[in-house]
């Protein structure tokens, strides 16, 4: 059952990823990305990390993709004239895909060092780790957001006249 679900999610994720880059319309790409992110949530669920799975759906598939879709609609990017994949770089891309694929294959067939998060299913345990051992990175992300907010606000506010 578990491996059946794994293969289901895997095929959906790969197919969705191909859809993301192969679509001509930006909105279809965005919708395909939602499928990919949801199938990732499925992977996390299968690994027993139900909290991460829920976060994946709520934050990525929910909030962030909604923003994507809104921005695409607001900008009015309805039709893309050019094909999404440029043939010029296609072969180079395949070479790199094969390289990374071979590397990942090797990693998975040989023994991967076991780093199982034993207690990761429990939200209480996650919060203990986040506010204990990883409190610095956790708090730093808030500074990251502050910097990003201030920067985005500055760049977007007011209209500077562009010189020629």
């Amino acid at each position, binding site marked *: 059952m578990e491996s059946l679900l794994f293969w289901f999610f895997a095929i959906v994720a790969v197919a969705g990823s191909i859809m993301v880059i192969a679509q001509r319309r930006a909105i279809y790409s965005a919708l395909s990305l939602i499928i990919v992110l949801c199938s990732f949530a499925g992977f996390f669920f299968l690994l027993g990390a139900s909290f991460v799975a829920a976060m994946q759906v709520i934050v990525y598939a929910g909030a962030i993709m909604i923003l994507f879709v809104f921005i695409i609609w607001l900008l009015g990017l309805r039709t893309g004239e050019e094909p999404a994949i440029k043939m010029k770089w296609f072969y180079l891309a395949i070479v790199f895909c094969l390289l990374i694929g071979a590397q990942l294959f090797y990693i998975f067939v*040989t023994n*991967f*060092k*076991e*780093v199982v998060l034993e207690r990761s299913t429990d939200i209480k345990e996650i919060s203990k780790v986040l506010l204990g051992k990883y409190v610095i990175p956790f708090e730093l992300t808030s*500074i990251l957001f502050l910097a990003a907010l201030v*920067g985005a*606000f*500055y760049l977007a506010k007011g209209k500077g006249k562009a010189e020629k």
Partner: protein
Amino acid sequence: MLDFTQLNASILPEIILVLAAIVILLIEGFQKKLNKYCSLIALIAVVGLIYYLISIWNSNLKGFYAGVVLDNFALFASLIYLLSAALIILSAVHFLDIKKIESGEFYALLLIAVAAMIFISSANDMITIFISLEIFSICLYVLVGYDRNSVRGVEGAIKYFILGAFSAGILLYGIVLIYGAVGSTNLEALSKIQGLEMSQKILLYFGAGLVLVGLGFKISLVPFHMWTPDAYEGAPTVITAFMAAATKTAAFSVLIRIFVINLPSHEISLEWILWILAIVTMTVGNFIALSQENIKRMLAYSSIAHAGYITVGLVGASGNREAGNVMYYLIVYAMMNIGAFLVIAHLERGKDFLSALHYKGLAYKNTFLALALSWFLLCLAGLPPTSGFLAKYYVFLAAVEKGYTILVIIAVLNSALAAYYYLRIIVFMWMHGKEEGKALVKGEETWSLISMTAIVIALLLTLQLSFMPSRFLQLALSF
């Protein structure tokens, strides 16, 4: 549980900087009248911290489950960021005024970037390193495009942003692979590993290589340098100075902490990759710099070449002592490069004064600035009495002692080649007629005491690094 005394001390500098940034943002938001004090607040925070950091030298503060280590190495790197930031703030007051750019967010973003850089140097955990890197990168993306009226600035910012985001992904992938091989993101755990199996070693190699690529983007090593000239040219000149000095130091300090200090050399050795990168970086940087007319672009390629020299230092480094040499090179490089950029920023009136030809006859127009710029360029060229020579000497000597003679020969040949484009500017300034200078140095002479002070301080610091380097060398060799 958490030990609060250590908790406060080990991240106190960052807390102060972020608080100052928030105060500046609040002033910008609610008290527009007090706007002109923003730079003062930023300056006080930065200068105060310089004194504070020197006072806690040798105290080796640790906190947060050894996730933050404020040792002498981190303190020295922080000193470089803070000195750079202080000079940039001094110069920016005048620069932003002349260019009619709003100032509030500028200082806030600068302070946040400095705080993140201090974090990255004192971080002992790869997750912290990654997030800090992202914080100062985001600040810099915005600062590069800070002059929204400049098309080139926005172009540079977008290029920097897209390539930077891509490199962040590569860096993160590398960290994940190292985590997969070692089972921990903590650098101390990384240094203690031994007896890895073959498959884990391959993982570690891939991971370390990708981390090198991700950081290579930030220090503009050659295959990953494409964004550098455009971003450096488009950015406000004071920010270019900050990027060249502080960002490079931050990324190099991480490289040293991961590759020289913590990655066990008996398990994995990346020296040959660094060897190739060093040669390619200096050669490409110098050869392209030869043909640059725009002085900011020329200094951008010169900074690529210098990244190559510093990488020679990394190849030669096998312990804390050599790491000290590299850090000494970084402080020397930061000061002389900032000095040169500050003079350019001071002279800059619009985009018309950036060609090398404009510097013809500058000596007769403004002798002091010409003297200062000549000195900084001589330092960058690394001619004997200057600090640039001293720094190169230590770094190259360490590499020779480790047996990398061919690498050092190529590096020395490169420095000789580089002297041409630095000296060319000096010749333009001193050996061309008075009339030419008057014809080209146009625009009303605006003289700013604050901006001049920054140049004088940079000059004094490089003079001290040249003729009385013992104090800085002592600090650099104390870890």
